[in-house]
């Protein structure tokens, strides 16, 4: 096979010479040139003609200096061989027969390689560890380098391309990358990113032609606009924009609207965060660029963004505002080079704080179409305004902006983070960008892409580790702002808690081991990162008689793992028995903070308890299907509310008598569980498609006497906890406990009445003793069966 790298080529020789000259050589050449000229002139001044030789020979260092600056540092590419395409800084350092390790060293030492190290964590040591000293293995690297260069559209084989080629030549590179949470495609994206950055710097350093000193001579003065508006064409905006599909289309549409003869207005309609204002900025930038291909009638026009609040503040009196706005718009029209932009245009079309309804005044202007106006509005507002004032909507040329795709969002993030890095003195890793996209997609619902990912990425800067924003920084940002847990369990405490979850829950509730196990398993799967992230953490249906621990398990879970019982979102579905109750279930948080969607939006990391689900109206259950299936429920405003970080537990007493019957006939739970569920379906208590949505259906069995004694222990432990502040504790004898069970247990109501009985017997006894002064701090009150009997009476009702 033909060798791909010829280390003795002319280009290689030139690059090597350039590397040898280096920065130090450049200074030396400059000094030599100056010395020869000055020295020559001095000799000539002394009357010696040989001075001409010195002056003449100053041309040699000057020429080498020019050559170095303009060619040797970045020699022109030649042909399709590796030596013809390698970047000058690499080629200059390579010898005629380099080994893979030497290539890795050089790739890591140049700018592109350092970029890859900073953005992906692929350091020089990593590259050294995966390469050998065998020059025969270089062929694979060169082949990869040529392929990657073509794939990324890079002009040369630069440090980034070469570093990626070195990695791809390592047989175990997929595993190595997986360890860094990367794939091969990500590295290709990395090389592309580096290429984009180079292009951005090049474009940024190119001189801009913006019309010169006489650009605005033919246009009018605009003192009012300068006072009440912001000039988007003042040249301070971003100079290089990202090609987001919908943005490019919208820009073309705007230009076509403003250069045709129709109504000179456009309304950009799209969700918040989709980039409507950015499009206006891009347009301002484009029409100010003399080299841009745009119609003459648009060239050098200026876009002014009107500020609603400063207009309102300047004209507080009745009718004053209309007059002021008319003067401002009149000025824009007279000036002839102004495009007005009403950002968040709803502020000008509806009454409210900081807004004003100018529809009647603006409508004739928009209909006449003489003054160029751009409005931006979100979809919902546009629909509202269209409904209220159809003629206003008809007078506008609508341009819809769709959210950016993942690829576009990643490109926007890569572009925007340069500014964030400069302002906040941080460096973003590629993994942070990916995580910002994925997590914002899941958790940020009030913005569209790319705004939602950018918002998260910006907030992640506050959680950087030594100035580096990693995937972990993004995790922390979302965990702190949304009060959820997204990463895998990484602290010893948490790991310990997860591994012993069953024991911790059993400290609060007795038996029901299968139920405890399934919820514990679900949580462990979630926190180990092995669950399906497009569904809730777990969805469970707890069936069984009342008072057997269904609700208690939910509370225990919220308390033990989610950080307190208040982390439980509880809904009694017996309050949702009519079809119209669906709207209450998904009501807007501003109107009903107790709706399911409002509570989960506020607290996504929680236990959602849907009590007595069998009593809900079928339409309510149908609404809940999507929640159980995809972990998403849309609220009344059509916003997605994520349940993907919640454990959803539905409870039902349906068939409680049948469970008791089975138990009394001596069946074990596992023997009749399946049959019991079939009975629930055949008796039309639940539809099969509803039951199928749950991860697990768990039947709770009634508690037996020894278990009820343990429940008494838990209740007494609770009483002791309450008394701990007074340094008093209660000790109930065993026969008293059995008596309490006899008195408190009701086969229909389960263990629930026992709490009331214990309250009446033990708490009242303690209260009396404390008030009579019989006990003091540090005392232990022994409660005997006789005392309990005396408190409850022999035939005391429960």
């Amino acid at each position, binding site marked *: 096979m033909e060798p791909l790298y010829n280390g003795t080529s*002319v280009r290689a*020789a*030139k690059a090597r*010479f350039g590397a040898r000259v280096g920065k130090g050589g450049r200074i030396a050449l400059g000094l030599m040139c100056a010395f020869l000229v000055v020295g*020559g*002139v001095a000799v*000539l*001044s002394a*009357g*010696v*003609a*040989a*001075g*001409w*030789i*010195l*002056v*003449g*020979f*100053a*041309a*040699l260092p*000057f*020429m*080498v200096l*020019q*050559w170095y600056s*303009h*060619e040797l540092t970045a020699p*022109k590419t030649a042909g399709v061989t590796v030596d013809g395409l390698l970047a000058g800084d690499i080629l200059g350092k390579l010898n005629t027969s380099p080994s893979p390790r030497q290539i890795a060293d050089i790739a890591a030492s140049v700018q592109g390689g350092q970029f890859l190290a900073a953005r992906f964590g692929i350091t020089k040591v990593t590259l050294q560890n995966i390469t050998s000293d065998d020059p025969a293995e270089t062929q694979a690297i060169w082949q990869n380098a040529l392929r990657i260069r073509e794939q990324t559209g890079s002009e040369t084989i630069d440090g980034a391309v070469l570093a990626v080629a070195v990695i791809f030549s390592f047989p175990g590179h997929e595993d190595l990358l997986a360890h860094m949470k990367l794939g091969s495609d990500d590295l290709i994206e990395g090389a592309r990113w580096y290429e984009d950055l180079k292009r951005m710097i090049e474009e940024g350093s190119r*001189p801009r*032609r*913006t*019309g*010169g*000193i*006489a*650009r*605005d*001579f*033919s*246009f*009018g*003065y605009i003192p009012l606009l300068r006072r009440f508006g912001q000039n988007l064409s003042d040249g301070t905006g971003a100079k290089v924009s990202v090609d987001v599909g919908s943005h490019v289309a919208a820009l073309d549409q705007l230009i076509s609207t403003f250069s045709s003869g129709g109504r000179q207005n456009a309304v950009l309609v799209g969700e918040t965060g989709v980039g409507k204002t950015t499009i206006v900025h891009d347009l301002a930038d484009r029409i100010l660029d*003399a080299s841009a291909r745009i119609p003459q009638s648009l060239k*050098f026009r200026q876009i002014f963004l009107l500020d609603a609040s400063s207009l309102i503040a300047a004209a507080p009196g009745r009718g004053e505002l209309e007059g002021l706005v008319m003067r401002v718009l009149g000025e824009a*029209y*007279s*000036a*002839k080079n102004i495009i007005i932009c009403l950002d968040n245009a709803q502020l000008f079309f509806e009454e409210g704080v900081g807004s004003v309804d100018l529809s009647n005044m603006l409508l004739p202007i928009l209909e006449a179409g003489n003054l160029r106006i751009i409005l931006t509005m979100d979809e919902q507002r546009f629909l509202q305004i269209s409904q209220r004032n159809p003629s206003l909507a008809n007078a506008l040329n609508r341009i819809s902006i769709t959210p950016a795709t993942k690829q576009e969002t990643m490109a926007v993030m890569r572009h925007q983070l340069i500014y964030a890095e400069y302002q906040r003195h941080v460096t973003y890793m590629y993994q942070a960008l990916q995580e910002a996209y994925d997590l914002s997609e899941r958790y940020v619902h009030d913005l569209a892409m790319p705004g939602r990912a950018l918002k998260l990425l910006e907030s992640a800067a506050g959680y950087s580790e030594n100035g580096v924003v990693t995937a972990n920084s993004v995790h922390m940002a979302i965990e702190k702002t949304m009060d959820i847990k997204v990463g895998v369990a990484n602290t010893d405490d948490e790991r310990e808690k997860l591994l012993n979850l069953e024991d911790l829950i059993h400290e609060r509730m007795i038996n029901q081991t299968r139920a405890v196990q399934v919820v514990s398993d679900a949580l462990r799967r979630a926190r180990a990162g092995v669950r399906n992230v497009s569904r809730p953490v777990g969805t469970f249906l707890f069936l069984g008689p009342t008072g057997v621990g269904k609700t208690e398990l939910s509370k225990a879970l919220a308390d033990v793992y989610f950080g307190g019982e208040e982390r439980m979102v509880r809904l009694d579905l017996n309050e949702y028995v009519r079809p119209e109750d669906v709207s209450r279930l998904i009501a807007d948080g501003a109107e009903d903070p107790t709706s399911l969607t409002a509570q989960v939006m506020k607290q996504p990391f929680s236990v959602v308890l849907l009590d007595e689900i069998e009593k809900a109206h079928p339409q309510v259950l149908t609404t809940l299907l999507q929640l159980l299936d995809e972990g998403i429920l849309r609220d009344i405003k059509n916003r997605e509310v994520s349940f993907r970080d919640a454990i959803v537990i539905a409870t039902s007493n349906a068939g409680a008598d049948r469970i008791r019957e089975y138990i009394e006939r001596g069946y074990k739970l596992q023997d009749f569980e399946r049959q019991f569920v079939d009975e629930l379906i055949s008796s039309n208590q639940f539809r099969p498609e509803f039951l199928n949505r749950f991860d697990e259906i768990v039947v709770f069995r009634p508690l037996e006497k020894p278990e009820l004694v343990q429940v008494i222990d838990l209740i007494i432990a609770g009483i002791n906890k309450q008394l701990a502040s007074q340094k008093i504790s209660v000790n109930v004898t065993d026969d008293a406990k059995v008596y309490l069970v006899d008195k408190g247990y009701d086969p229909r109501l389960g263990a629930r009445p026992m709490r009331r009985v214990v309250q009446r017997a033990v708490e009242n006894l303690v209260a009396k003793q404390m008030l009579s002064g019989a006990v003091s701090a540090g005392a232990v009150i022994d409660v005997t069966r006789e005392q309990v009997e005396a408190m409850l009476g022999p035939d005391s009702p429960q």
Partner: protein
Amino acid sequence: MFMLLVTELLRWWYGDGWRGRARLASVRLDGTIDYFSIGLLVKTLFSPFRQISAGRVDGSLNVQMRALVDKLVSRLIGAMVRTVILVVGGIAIALQAVLSGLLLVAWGLVPLLPVAGAVLAFVGPVL
């Protein structure tokens, strides 16, 4: 190797190097033309200067006459200002063009300087 480098240096000097210089001169000239808005000034030489009214003026003959005079005065001022800038800009551009041309010619002569220096040293003129 030395001869190869010398050959390559000269090849670049009279090839890409010279072309690069010419391109740089052209870019700078474009910048100056843009700075003085030459194209715009020529196109709008007789347009009103900083116009304060647009479109047709309605009203009595008196009002229309006054508007016409206003516009005429505005156009006159505009033409004067623009002409002055055109002249100043024209001179600046011409000077820059001449200077750039001289520099381009000088670029071609630089490799000959050592020989020229040796000849002058032999001929003997001194300062």
